[in-house]
């Protein structure tokens, strides 16, 4: 470069002198907006470089934020994921506590409404390992004065009965168990029947004659004939009903959520619970008894008796509505005799 300049020194000097004068001219000349030409040239010359630099650094910044910076983003993402997981866990715990508080509040209300009854709150601690057995275990036992054949309910309705009592726990048979029976009646017509477990989520109500008008959604309550469940406890509603031989096939949808039991109530006595406040589902107020029918049959409700259809005096005869005092049934027709093992007696 230097050699070429020395060889062409006159030409190089010419270029330098001309260039210097061009710059001198550019310094003096003002273009539009009173901008010196040399400034105009400078801006024009530097603009592509500046644009290129801006493009380069913006893409470099994009490269940094898009790739290299992702290392930090990944770490931050992991931290956020862990934080979200922890928050979700806390949220579930809070939801669980809120649900538990709600359940306890319901239980407390139930206890306050039926303050005259002796009852014991219990928690379900495990279920049966046998899929065919609809039983569960509660955390109340002999030390809590729990005894066999005590009724287990929830504020929603009947759950089952205590079948085995241990020192600190008890085994409860659900009303859906095949060996379970509950004396029941329709809340409006007072027609009696027996709730039988089938092993399915929905038990059936047996011993209701075909002539009895049963509607879907009809409320079913305990009759108290089994000497286990006090009269008037909500059992469920009719899910479906159709004629059978010799009795109707009535499927009952339990009022209590038997598939998600957590807190239950053990009734320490069999005293009939007082009707709850209007609107509370705990018990169903009895309706006034209809006029007695001429051919009223009497239910053989004894602890040794049973709901044996074969012993029904007139199974096909229409059943009558029951009054308040259903332990002395005033049904127009014979109500099937309930066996104690089906009406809350030992399942064995």
């Amino acid at each position, binding site marked *: 470069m230097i050699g070429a300049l020395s060889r062409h020194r*006159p030409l190089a000097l010419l270029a330098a002198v*001309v260039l210097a*004068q061009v710059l*001198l001219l550019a310094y003096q000349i003002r273009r539009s907006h009173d901008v010196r030409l040399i400034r105009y040239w400078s801006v024009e010359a530097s603009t592509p470089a500046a644009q290129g630099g801006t493009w380069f650094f913006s893409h470099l910044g994009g490269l940094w934020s898009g790739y290299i910076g992702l290392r930090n983003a990944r770490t931050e993402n992991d931290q956020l994921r862990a934080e979200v997981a922890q928050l979700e866990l806390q949220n579930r715990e809070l939801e669980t506590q809120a649900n538990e508080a709600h359940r306890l509040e319901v239980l407390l209300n139930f206890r306050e409404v039926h303050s005259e009854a002796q009852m014991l709150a219990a928690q379900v601690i495990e279920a049966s390992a046998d899929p065919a057995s609809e039983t569960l275990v509660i955390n109340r036992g002999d030390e809590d004065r729990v005894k066999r054949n005590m009724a287990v309910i929830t504020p929603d309705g009947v759950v089952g009965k205590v079948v085995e009592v241990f020192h600190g726990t008890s085994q409860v048979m659900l009303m859906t168990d095949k060996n379970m029976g509950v004396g029941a009646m329709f809340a409006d017509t007072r027609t009696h029947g027996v709730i039988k477990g089938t092993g399915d989520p929905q038990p059936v109500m047996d011993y209701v004659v075909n002539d009895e008008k049963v509607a879907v959604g009809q409320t079913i309550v305990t009759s108290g004939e089994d000497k286990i469940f006090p009269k008037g406890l909500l059992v469920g509603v009719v899910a479906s009903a159709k004629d059978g031989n010799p009795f109707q096939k009535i499927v009952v949808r339990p009022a209590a959520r038997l598939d998600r039991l957590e807190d239950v109530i053990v009734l320490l006595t069999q005293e009939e619970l007082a009707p709850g406040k209007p609107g509370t589902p705990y018990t169903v107020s009895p309706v006034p008894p209809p006029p007695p029918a001429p051919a009223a049959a009497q239910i053989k409700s004894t602890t040794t008796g049973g709901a044996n259809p074969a012993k029904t005096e007139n199974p096909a005869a229409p059943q009558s509505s029951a009054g308040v005092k259903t332990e002395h049934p005033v049904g127009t027709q014979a109500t099937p005799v309930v066996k104690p093992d089906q009406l809350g007696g030992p399942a064995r």
Partner: protein
Amino acid sequence: MASMLNTGLQSEQNIEVHKFYSGSVVLVSFVALILQAFLHKYGRWADVVDLPLLIVIYFGVSRRNPVTGLLLGAAIGIFQDGLSHDNPIGLYGIAKTLVGYLASTIGAHIDTDHPVARFVLTFAFFHFHQCILAFTERALLNQSAPYFSLHLLVDSLISAAVAVFLFAALDRLRKSS
């Protein structure tokens, strides 16, 4: 014309580099610039002949040194710009720098002492100078200066004629070899 060119065009080895008395180049250039500015106030006719341009051409082709030629042209042109009051500095400077360089380069290859050669060279350099001026004005000043016109042709012919006599007068400033 052909014989005159043949007489003028000699080999580079035979071309003599003229030297001048010390200070004569500066003094002549200064006088030319002052005279150009002084005569300018007496009317347009004084602008017909660009005396500084003729000085640049003469010393360029006489000294036959491109470096001194372009420097002299730059100095005279800038000085002329300075005296013009309305021209940006460098307008005449660029043009006369190129003329000085080109005149020195050409003078190093051909004999420019012949009056016809001086006439032709002055004529050519006048238009070359004008083209540079016009280009610079168009490019930098955004003005529509003409590259060529009949008026410029007349001026160039007059300048070339004046140059023949002026150069002969300036030859007296040469040192005798």
